[in-house]
């Protein structure tokens, strides 16, 4: 896939694009980083987002967008190398360390991130956040999962349905 011209080229400065969050905050970011988003990539390839225009993202607030871009900026160099056979083990370890730190966040932020990553179609981020949520679920009973993620108390019908399903697999009622 043709990557947008990056700062490594002869042109000197990297091409920048502007993203606008739902609360009207403008973020200027390298096109290569923003292009990790499949949703944005087409627009950027068409030349959008440059100059004073900016790409509005009505579904992503500024706090979430800054977090998303933090991820994209960190991962853009590796992505530009296209899977990077020349990436060193040190680079990969550094990315891994970053990823682990990155998702060590409050679950409401995690929730916003998973929604944003889905909407912007950032594959790596989707997978990273999904794995974090999966790790939070692991080893827990259905009721414990509900408590961990702050589900409201189940309605009597919901409870009955859960009980039937749990009984089938041998979980004790709680």
């Amino acid at each position, binding site marked *: 896939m043709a990557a947008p011209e990056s700062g490594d080229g002869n042109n000197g400065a990297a091409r920048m694009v502007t993203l606008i969050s*739902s*609360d009207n905050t403008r973020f200027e970011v390298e096109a290569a980083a923003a292009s990790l988003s499949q949703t944005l990539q087409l627009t950027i390839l068409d030349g959008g987002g440059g100059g004073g225009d900016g790409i509005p993202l009505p*579904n*992503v*607030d500024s*706090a*979430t967008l800054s977090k998303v871009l933090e991820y994209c900026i960190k991962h853009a160099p590796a992505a530009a190398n296209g899977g990077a056979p020349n990436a060193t083990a040190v680079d990969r370890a550094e990315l891994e360390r970053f990823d682990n730190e990155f998702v060590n966040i409050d*679950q*409401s932020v*995690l*929730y*916003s991130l*998973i*929604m*944003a990553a*889905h*909407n912007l179609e950032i594959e790596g981020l*989707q*997978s990273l956040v*999904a*794995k974090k*949520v*999966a*790790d939070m*679920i*692991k*080893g*827990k*009973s*259905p009721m414990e*999962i*509900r408590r961990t*993620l*702050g*589900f409201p108390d*189940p309605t009597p019908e*919901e409870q009955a*349905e*859960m009980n039937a*399903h*749990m009984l*089938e*697999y*041998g*979980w*004790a009622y709680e």
Partner: protein
Amino acid sequence: MSLQRLRLFPDFHNKEPGTGPSWSDLLVDILLTILQHLELPQAIAFASVCKTWRSAATVARVPCSCTPWIISWANHLEKRRVQGKCSTFVTCSSYHLDVEKAYDISFPQGCFVACCGASHGWLVLVNELSNLVLYNPFTTAMIPLPPITDFECVEAVYGSGGQDKWQVASTFPGRLADRYLDCAYHDGSFYTVTSYGLLEKWHLDELGGPRREELVSATARGFILTRHMVSTPWGDLLQGATLLRTPGSRCLLSHPPPPPRTEEHHGGAALLLHTPPRMTKRASVRSLLAASSGRLGGAPPTRDPGVDRWSSFPSASLADLCGAPSSRRPDAARRRHALYRPA
């Protein structure tokens, strides 16, 4: 539909305090990415959490019915043979016949050396101390059974409910090559079968200890690789045996004692276990056919027109199913697949 429901991206930072993210309203696509990172037990817990999550689990084909599972630890044994003794976490594959898809199940450290069978939602495992434990792979609950290490050579034991004591029922002298291959509880009695085809029924409630009744005497020699018995929900006791044949192998399934009918199945690489309650007896017998072939390996199994359902083990070979006849591994390690049915 309310406006709130239509919004793809609820903005939590502007929400009133006290209202958190609504995990139960996540899009199915997102839930699917989470499910990808879950092993089977967690995937089933996931499916119990709420309606939306359950529907995602259904899309991801997480099985939610009581249909039996087939659990295979062939890969694990292979790995152990290559790496020597390992005491790391064991992961088994588990196949569900409704969805024909494999899931991983990990066992706690040290608790899985082999699986002897399954009943009422519990797997019977042999742990590293050679003791038996009951293990529920979904809830990870574990019940240790009384130790059997007191016995020098345990061939068959029984214990009745509540008693914390096991008693030797029968042993074979070491010089005889015959050995017990399977034991099944059926219709109030225990049945045992040996590699030579000796089929015994054990009456446990007799005064003076268990009484043995020989139903079929030992005959077959040499080419039987393994035998198994299955007590079916519709009241039959079936025996399956794998025969070594050139060029392939075949599997027989019969009703003991003296087989009123025998089904044969040649070649292929399928192991079939299916117990739909509405099927007729004859169809059920057919559906329990098991066949394996060491030569065909990963070749796609052919579907026998008489078989209602089948599921294949991509990696299964003859050795996977029953252990090579020349193997010197302990008996407990020979069986590598168990029929597992949630309670």
